């Protein structure tokens, strides 16, 4: 097995020349590509299909093993006993649908145009270095979306305004704590506690006619929906290990946000039922 720190360098100035053994470089590229897909929230099926598509274009037989936090990629030409295997840790990029879509698109561009490894690598580097969506933009849109959720569940305009403010406050706290490297479970607990406590203002000050809807929907932005959906898809596709890993991760986060919500209600003396 090859360690991931192989000396694969694409040098555009020299016409995309590849230094070192090409098999190792291709294997490393495919492993890194798969690790980014895994990190940005792609299902195992998508990771396998996309990576296999590119390996086929590069002229290699291919197999992949996807673990909850790592991927193993093996490529070979004729003799599987001489396969090059590379392991790569899942990229810590967070759920990112834009990156997920662009990485998938890359595999189709490579397949449709028969691009070589070096060009694919070059495009891959550009894709993963794209600046993420602005935090303030995310804050505004997520708050509006959560306020809309409140409306869908029957909340009035006052409840929507309360949810908007509580989501803004909780999500900003989540962004700050995440940027500081705090444990994700603590982040979820704190964000849900403060969002629930702020939205409980509807009850405390008797604002609007549906304060209970505002309280219930104020923490919806924290529900880890993508891991839950991916877990079901992985389970249907018989990737049980990844499926259970994702569902347990999501379950732990759901418990944390529930604890925060309950703590907020308990401290403010609200009735549970």
């Amino acid at each position, binding site marked *: 097995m090859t360690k991931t720190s192989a000396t694969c360098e694409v040098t555009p100035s020299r016409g995309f020349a590849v230094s070192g053994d090409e098999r190792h470089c291709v294997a490393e590229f495919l492993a890194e590509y798969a690790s980014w897909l895994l990190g940005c929230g792609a299902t195992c099926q998508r990771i396998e299909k996309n990576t296999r598509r590119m390996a086929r274009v590069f002229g290699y037989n291919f197999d992949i093993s996807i673990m909850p936090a790592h991927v193993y990629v093996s490529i070979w030409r004729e003799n599987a006993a001489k396969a090059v295997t590379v392991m790569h840790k899942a990229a810590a990029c967070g759920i990112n649908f834009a990156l997920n879509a662009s990485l998938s698109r890359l595999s189709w561009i490579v397949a449709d145009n028969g691009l070589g490894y070096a060009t694919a690598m070059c495009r891959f580097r550009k894709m993963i270095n794209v600046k993420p969506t602005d935090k303030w933009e995310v804050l505004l849109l997520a708050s509006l979306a959560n306020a809309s959720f409140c409306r869908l569940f029957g909340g009035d305009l006052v409840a929507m305004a309360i949810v908007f403010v509580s989501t803004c406050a909780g999500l*900003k706290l989540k962004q*700050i704590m995440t940027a500081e490297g*705090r*444990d994700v479970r603590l982040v979820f607990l704190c964000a849900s506690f403060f969002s629930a*406590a702020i939205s409980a*203002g509807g009850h405390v*000050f008797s604002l609007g006619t549906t304060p209970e809807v505002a309280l219930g929907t104020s923490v919806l932005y924290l529900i880890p929906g993508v891991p839950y959906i991916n877990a079901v898809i992985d389970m249907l596709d018989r990737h049980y290990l990844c499926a259970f890993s994702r569902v347990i991760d999501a379950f732990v986060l759901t418990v944390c946000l529930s604890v925060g919500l309950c703590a907020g209600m308990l*401290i403010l*003396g609200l009735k549970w039922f």
Partner: protein
Amino acid sequence: MSQSVVIWIVIATFLFILLVYKVFVGKHLVHGHRHGHMHRFKKSQLHVLEIGNEREMFYINGDANDEDECDV
């Protein structure tokens, strides 16, 4: 004023101050650090309570680098 109202005001005020500090004052400090003013502030800063992150918990005195390449 009922107990719930007092608790709500305390929580909301705490969160408001925290966010304002982190978003505006924190940014100012980082800006000051870039211009070499952070050192003076650090000396006068009093840490009553501090929550450590994972890197600090696993840091061992005598390590060549406190920057671990695994910390991403």
